[in-house]
């Protein structure tokens, strides 16, 4: 057995804290170590080349690299050894950067620890075995979860690449948050005007199958072969028959009595509804929480909607349906929730009708909104408007991050108020104006010139909105009180309330802020830790529309590439069973979450289906006779590593 060990200095990232030459001196004396070297950057071309050269010249059988986290460069070095004729599983990586040099300051102790970890890896390397990676075929279809602008973009891109896409949206229509916005900053494009053609494109695209009013129920499988169960909620309207004429909504007994969530509850709709006029698909849905017939089994003496519908589309017998989709990759674009300021009494939201959120403002100025675009509070045009920034963002006790869009949407909204009311007094309480995007600073400067008072306050300074008979008084520390008749809270973007549930279904992680976590913040911002699952839009972090669209296009490329290749290589780490040792006790059977272990009653032993096995090793840890071996994490390998570390 000949082992080559390569210790990386990573510039000074490792070398500043670990005495790399000393490590190399010690490692050289370890059993079976044929060669030990150090490089400034082992991942660089010369670093890789020195490994290749040694493998050839010294006939190495195993290679150990001590450098950064295997999450970073294990694929790099596996490829290096594989090119030179060593099985990639005969390579072992030691993390002496993230787990040593970056977390310890004492050079002597850090050096000792690095030596111990390498000793563990060298001991383990002797027992590493070559493994064959399985190549599996890829179902040439993709699933996009979420029908906002990010999901729409991703679906269109993948579909245009020639692959079939299922687009699943939980609400009755495509569009997401962007559909609620009036204008977009900094160009002041009409949001609906640029969004709705894309929604129509989705509906028309021959490669996209749209499943609205549907939710992901369960996700099984792995990259290339996901099996996704989707719940189609009953609309109680036959979408094949419904022509979207709206006669039912006109007739509905509850017309004008049901809060319209699309208008942020500022208007009322019927119990049978479309969220907004340009909805895609233009099919009506019955709100089962409000419809009398669905709640009480009775609606007056006659069913007005059924009578009104000339198409006979209404069907109160509809039940939820479950469909199974087989897809190769998944793009998650589930978006965000708006911060709810009612939990922060200081803003006086809900107490005073004069205090509204940024999204409510969007609906109020929208021509299709509850007031047909007339910005008025209690029937009166506002004369003194105050915007308060960073509501629910940059809060060390709550959402610590910056929501990235509020500065600019506030500038846009201030501009719109000025546009409508040239004589209004407009003030903005801000802390830092973050105008970082293309055209943002220019737009902010333009708004500043429109006689809008930008008033700076510290985040920790107190601010309070109290009602009086005329409107409200905004009391901000260090500033004179402002008697306002409209206060707009620049509410931030928060993770969707069901993110945790979605993350569990998709087997992906959440970041500390509650948004979905990317595989690497710099280099793999579209990937998740689960191969074949990608992220797009605000589900990953708050972003504006151009960033969401760009990320969605990127995620679409990531999701389409395995489909184009037709094959993916999956990890070779699975369990195997020694039939001679298996006693058929069946303890392992119930431990397996994937039913990969099956009892063969004729032979009274267990068999492992290595296509189903995901390689967790729960069975191997429980097998009383030691019949199950976990490839790449066998007892021998782990125990050797323990011994290597401790006996060093």
């Amino acid at each position: 057995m000949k082992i080559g060990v390569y210790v990386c200095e990573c510039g000074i990232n490792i070398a500043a804290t670990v005495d790399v030459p000393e490590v190399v001196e010690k490692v050289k004396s370890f059993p079976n170590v044929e060669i030990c070297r150090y490089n400034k950057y082992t991942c660089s071309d010369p670093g890789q080349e020195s490994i290749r050269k040694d493998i050839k010249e010294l006939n190495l059988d195993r290679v150990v690299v001590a450098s950064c986290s295997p999450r970073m460069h294990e694929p790099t070095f596996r490829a290096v050894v594989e090119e030179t004729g060593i099985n990639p599983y005969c390579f072992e990586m030691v993390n002496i950067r993230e787990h040593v040099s970056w977390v310890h300051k004492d050079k002597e102790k850090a050096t000792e620890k690095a030596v111990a970890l390498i000793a563990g890896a060298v001991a383990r390397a002797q027992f590493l075995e070559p493994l064959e990676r399985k190549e599996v075929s890829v179902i040439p279809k993709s699933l996009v979860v979420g029908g906002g602008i990010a999901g729409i973009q991703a679906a269109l891109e993948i579909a245009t690449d020639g692959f079939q896409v299922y687009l699943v949206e939980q609400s009755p229509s495509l569009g997401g948050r962007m559909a609620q916005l009036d204008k977009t900053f900094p160009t002041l494009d009409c949001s609906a005007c640029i969004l709705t053609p894309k929604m129509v494109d989705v509906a028309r695209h021959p490669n996209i199958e749209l499943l609205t009013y549907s939710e992901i129920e369960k996700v099984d499988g792995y990259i290339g072969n996901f099996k996704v169960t989707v719940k189609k909620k009953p609309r109680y309207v036959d979408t094949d028959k419904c022509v979207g004429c709206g006669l039912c909504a006109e007739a509905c007994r509850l017309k004008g009595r049901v809060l319209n969530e699309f208008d942020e509850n500022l208007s009322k709709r019927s119990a049978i509804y479309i969220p907004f006029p340009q909805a895609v698909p233009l099919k009506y849905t019955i709100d089962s929480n409000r419809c009398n017939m669905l709640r009480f089994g009775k609606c007056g003496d006659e069913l007005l909607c059924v009578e009104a519908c000339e198409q006979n589309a209404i069907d109160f017998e509809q039940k939820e349906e479950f469909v199974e989709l087989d897809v190769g990759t998944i793009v998650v674009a589930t978006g965000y929730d708006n911060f709810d300021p009612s939990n922060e009494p200081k803003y006086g939201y809900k107490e005073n009708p004069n205090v509204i959120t940024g999204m409510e403002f969007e609906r109020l100025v929208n021509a299709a909104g509850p007031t047909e675009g007339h910005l008025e509070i209690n029937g009166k045009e506002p004369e003194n408007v105050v915007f308060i920034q960073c509501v629910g963002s940059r809060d060390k006790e709550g959402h610590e991050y910056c929501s990235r869009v509020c500065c600019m949407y506030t500038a846009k909204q201030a501009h719109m108020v000025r546009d409508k009311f040239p004589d209004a007094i407009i003030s903005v309480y801000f802390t830092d104006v973050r105008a970082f995007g293309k055209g943002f600073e220019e737009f902010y400067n333009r708004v500043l010139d429109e006689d809008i008072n930008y008033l700076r306050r510290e985040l920790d300074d107190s601010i309070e909105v109290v009602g009086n008979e005329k409107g409200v008084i905004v009391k901000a520390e260090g500033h004179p009180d402002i008697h306002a008749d409209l206060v707009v809270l620049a509410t931030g973007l928060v993770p969707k309330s069901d993110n945790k549930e979605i993350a569990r279904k998709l087997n992906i992680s959440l970041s500390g802020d509650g948004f979905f976590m990317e595989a690497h913040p710099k280099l793999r911002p579209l990937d998740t830790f689960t191969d074949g699952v990608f992220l797009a839009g605000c589900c990953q972090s708050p972003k504006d529309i151009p960033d969401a669209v760009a990320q969605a296009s990127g995620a679409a490329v990531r999701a389409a590439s395995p489909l184009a290749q037709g094959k993916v290589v999956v990890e070779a780490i699975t369990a195997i069973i020694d039939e001679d040792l298996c006693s058929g006790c069946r303890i392992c059977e119930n431990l397996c979450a994937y039913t990969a272990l099956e009892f063969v009653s004729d032979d009274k032993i267990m068999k492992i289906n290595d296509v189903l096995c995901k390689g967790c090793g729960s069975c191997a840890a429980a097998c009383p006779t030691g019949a199950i071996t976990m490839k790449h994490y066998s007892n021998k390998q782990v125990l050797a590593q323990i011994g290597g570390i401790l006996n060093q």
Partner: protein
Amino acid sequence: MTTTQPKAEVKEFEPNIIGFLCNWCSYAGADLAGTSRIQYSPNIKIIKVMCSGRVNPMFVVNALQQGADGVLIGGCHPGDCHYQHGNYLARRRIGVLKKVLEFMGIDERRVRMTWVSAAEGRKFAEVIEEITDDIRKLGPLKQLKRVNEW
């Protein structure tokens, strides 16, 4: 002439701790502590496993036999296991093992199971500080001697 030898400086006992971390959550949490440069004691040496459910209690016993003064097992938070329920299996196994260790006269605090997510770099460092402190107070483990290869 007699001079007393200067007393060797009394060095505080520094425990040797093995940490089995699952690939998906705890190992990533330890990586995050690294990228965030959050400092912690160097006593812990990490061994990566795919899932905390892979940790055979014999690994823990073996580590203690081979000279570890304590062992940490890190998995995903309950409900977040990458393999659905491997962390629950680990919790049960470690729970049982702790009882056996107590029976053998070994303080159960030497073995600890914890949940660290990929986002919890700070928590990871805190856990390491806690277990290192605990075991430093307990002193070296003397009860278990390695008898033979397992």
